């Protein structure tokens, strides 16, 4: 297409400014959500720094519902932050990737 206004690293500043103005609400909502997500990730990875943990153990420690913890574990595993460890009873333990 050869849009001259585009630099290699992203979009024109004016465009971004206009978009940010138009999507204020979304940006506020998502930013709050990301802040919350970062906190959760930090608490889960913080717990895992102490050693391998199962989902119920993490849930107990960080005060989240086990199903939320599992969702985060699955997500962090997908992006290479967490690895599956040994099985402990009916549950698998998870650990941090190096």
């Amino acid at each position, binding site marked *: *297409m050869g849009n001259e206004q*585009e*630099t*290699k*690293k*992203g*979009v024109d500043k004016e*465009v*971004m400014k*206009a*978009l*940010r103005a138009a*999507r204020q609400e*979304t*940006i506020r909502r*998502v*930013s709050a*959500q*990301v802040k919350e*997500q*970062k906190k959760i990730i930090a608490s889960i990875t913080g717990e895992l720094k102490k050693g391998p943990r*199962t*989902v*119920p153990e993490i*849930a107990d420690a960080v005060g989240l519902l*086990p*199903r939320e*913890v*599992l*969702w*985060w*574990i*699955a*997500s962090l*595993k*997908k*992006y290479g932050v967490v690895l*599956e460890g040994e*099985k402990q009873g*009916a*549950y*698998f333990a998870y650990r941090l990737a190096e």
Partner: protein
Amino acid sequence: MGTCQTLSYDALVVGGGIAGLQAALDLADQDYSVVVVERDASIGGTMIRLSKVFPTLDCASCITTPKMAAAAHHDKITLLTYCELETMERDDRGRVRAVVRQKPRYVDEDKCIGCRQCEYHCPVYVPDPDQGNFAARKAICIPFSNAVPQVAVMDPESCMLCGTCAKVCPTGAVVYDQQPRKIVIEALTAVVATGFSVTPLEDKAQYGSGTIPNVITALQMERLLAPHGPYNRVLRPSDGMEPDSIAFVQCAGSRDKSMGIPYCSRICCMYAIKQAMLLSGALPVADIFIYYMDIRAFGKGYEQFFQNARAMGIQFVKAKVALIEPGEDGAVTVRYEDQLNGGTTTASHDLVVLSLGKVPGWNPEGRCALTVGPDGFISGPEPKLAPTRTVEEGIFAAGAAVGLKDIVDSIAEASAAAMHAANYLQSRKKALEAVA
């Protein structure tokens, strides 16, 4: 709306699932030019989201991805993904004229090289419907690992415009202000292969309305069984426990007038048996139950598949489950009538899979002049001799769009639709030549 473009082909295929792809490949192999319009960001339809398929237990990807690749690389096939069909009509010269709205991916399709740097660096985690919502993807991502095309998509509703993706993209492909595009497609014939969708879990109060965490849909179970599923193994979603007892509840939304779906969804018996078999491989000590009314193992090799499942120790209970309730510690209780031993009883399972009802994936009403039957699926004038014909001359339909069908039957019907479309093309081209 951005620019409006008109494209011309011999044939238009609506839907890039297995039926649409097969129809496109059959037409293209006969040297006709074909455009495939797909609503999703990737072609592949329901099949590419499955784990393995009955009755051969081939992995779904092993069958689908080569067909996806073949379509993507065929000289005669153009793929338009992330496109909604707005209208389709026949013009006064008898040609099919379709208006398609290409949704913005916020990524330049020609520039994106599928490196996933945007996805890795995006800070926003959002539930991934392609993983049954059991894990996250990012606000910008490649839809799934074997998606075609390998082009990222951004969800503007989950984007805070932080600019990270644009910064890390090596080819400058991110376009935050991309606009939807209108495309007009002209073709001599069309094949509609819009597939099916599944009734929501919320629809049945007796089954918990979607509030019981360990009651999941069959498509979610497909993801748990799939090689790159959310957990890479079968765990119950409430807490990650490996389940010891798993139950399948058949007709959970089909053959049920109280839910408005009196018809049989045709594929659920077989996929439940298949999932049960895969589970007994993945969890050798687990007890697996299938609650059914009639086992409909009707296709080639299906009855033998069913008998194999019985021989493997999968327990078939002839009963329609009436009530599903949460039990202790994440367990799920099902209530049913044991018809031979003493009547009403309950059983407790770690994980319950619902074979929900299947409904049409697309409704032609207001978009084109196709007719549907009382079941909502596309109907035609010759259901016996030419099941793929529709009331619109030159427009054909195949696969689950014309009534629910398994993969084998969908593929055969797609080829049949391609044959009818090819013959229609042949006669139209002759007529056009005669005029010229």
